[in-house]
């Protein structure tokens, strides 16, 4: 006869290191203290991917920094390009051409879609649904092909969105190709929406983050929206052309891993909607400001300071840039959403969960170690 398992005896705690080179973690580690199979406490251990971008940017011109800003997050370089470019634009007082604004938004939203697809992929892997992982990375490649066509780089666009606008115009027939890819995206969304026993069993009711705690711990983006807060930087503080576009902000009240996963799917639908609207209204004209068309290495950034906020797929991203009138910015502070999601929020959510649920909670936060470590 099988006896019911007895709880682990007192004092039998042991340490368990989740990451930083574990296939289920990304370049980031969490030190767990376990008692039996239950996590007693968790302590994030960042730094595996620290490259000191903020310091590096003080040594480079905006042109070089635009390329460097790609690397702030591997999974959505175009969005980070955009934030950096907006910070420099605002310091320089440039009003970029209309067409460039539309192209920036189209690229940022395409980037958001592919980032959410990755999220779905890694989250599927986290809950033990391997098919989702493979589907996701297969479909993501359609968008990678678009990026290659438009920017020249599949993953890193090499500063395609640069101060003053974008580096070059859309090649011929791009509009048609984007619309075709969006059709493909509708297919992956349909697959993601299928009632899936693995997701239901492993994600529902796991890693519950209440709204009060979400605010206290500094959560933003899909994480706080999954806890019931109606907030989106694109709505609250419209940059580029977001005030002219019609889209909704999906919200869930449960605050568990499943709610966040659901938000990811809904946001992809909204992004597709945004890209379609922007493509329809895309005006003709220049794509880069005339003063920066042929950038010079001696172009100086006027004195001043700005704090720019954007909504990227992971949450609120910001750049605080100070210039003292030199070629390079005097100080750049990068505020990544994952800095808070991966340290305070994750540590809080992991307390008391089963060890098997650690990857599910971990990936439900849509994490990216690169923008946390910088």
């Amino acid at each position: 006869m099988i006896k019911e398992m007895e709880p682990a005896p007192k004092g039998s705690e042991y340490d368990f290191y989740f990451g930083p080179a574990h296939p289920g973690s990304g370049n980031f580690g969490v030190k767990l203290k376990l008692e039996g199979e239950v996590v007693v406490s968790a302590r994030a251990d960042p730094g595996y991917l620290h490259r000191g971008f903020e310091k590096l940017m003080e040594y480079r011109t905006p042109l070089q920094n635009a390329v460097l800003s790609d690397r702030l997050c591997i999974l959505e370089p175009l969005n980070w390009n955009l934030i950096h470019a907006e910070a420099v634009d605002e310091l320089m007082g440039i009003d970029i051409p209309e067409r460039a604004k539309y192209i920036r938004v189209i690229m940022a939203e395409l980037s958001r879609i592919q980032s959410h697809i990755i999220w779905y992929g890694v989250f599927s892997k986290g809950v033990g649904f391997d098919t989702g992982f493979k589907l996701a990375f297969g479909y993501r490649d359609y968008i990678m092909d678009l990026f290659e066509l438009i920017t020249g780089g599949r993953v890193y666009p090499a500063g395609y969105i640069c101060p003053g606008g974008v580096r070059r115009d859309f090649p011929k027939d791009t509009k048609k190709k984007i619309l075709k890819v969006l059709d493909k995206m509708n297919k992956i969304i349909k697959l993601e929406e299928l009632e899936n026993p693995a997701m239901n069993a492993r994600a529902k009711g796991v890693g519950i983050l209440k709204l009060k705690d979400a605010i206290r711990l500094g959560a933003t983006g899909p994480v706080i929206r999954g806890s019931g807060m109606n907030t989106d930087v694109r709505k609250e503080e419209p940059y580029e052309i977001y005030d002219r576009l019609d889209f909704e902000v999906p919200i869930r009240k449960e605050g568990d891993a499943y709610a966040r996963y659901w938000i990811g799917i809904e946001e992809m639908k909204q992004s597709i909607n945004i890209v379609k609207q922007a493509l329809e209204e895309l005006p003709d004209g220049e794509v880069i400001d005339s003063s920066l068309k042929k950038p010079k290495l001696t172009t100086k950034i006027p004195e001043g300071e700005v704090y720019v906020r954007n909504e990227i797929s992971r949450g609120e991203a910001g750049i605080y840039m100070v210039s003292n009138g030199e070629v390079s910015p005097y100080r750049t502070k990068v505020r990544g959403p994952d800095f808070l999601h991966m340290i305070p929020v994750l540590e809080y959510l992991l307390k008391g969960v089963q060890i098997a649920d650690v990857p599910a909670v971990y990936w439900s936060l849509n994490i990216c170690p690169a923008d946390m470590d910088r």
Partner: protein
Amino acid sequence: MDKKESEFLKKIKTKFKIDGKVQRDRRIWISITDDKLIEICKWMKENGFVHLSAISVTDWLKDGNYELTYHLWSYDDKILVTIKTRINRNKPNIESVTPIWEKNAQIHERELHELFGVNFNGNEDLVPLFLENWKGPAPFRKDFDWRDFVRDEFYDKKNEREQVYYD
């Protein structure tokens, strides 16, 4: 310029007698002395600024100052207020805002303690975050030359291939 920004600025100016300006829509910058920080931050939190977006330090080497900036966002008013305060860069001590923004502030302060060497009085957990076994000075200070540091620390003058760094 929007009305709500100037109204808010007027409110805080008369309450605490401080300098400030409206930069553009949804952006207010105020400068204060460091002894007023906690009092003002408490008031800000009570007035809807529940989200601490970021804390940053700028090293003004020429003036001998560290400038700390606290970027606060209000979900209700939709305004971002940046509080700026200066402290001596050779003795960088300041009160911690962890009693106000709790864990959120704690992690930002922990990062700045490591990168700039700022001591936040009242923050109990300031162990290094990113750098492992770091023995040099605070790396983000303006007078820290990382090129020299890397050369002295990691390169070998006798190594034929690394000699170029010493020319």
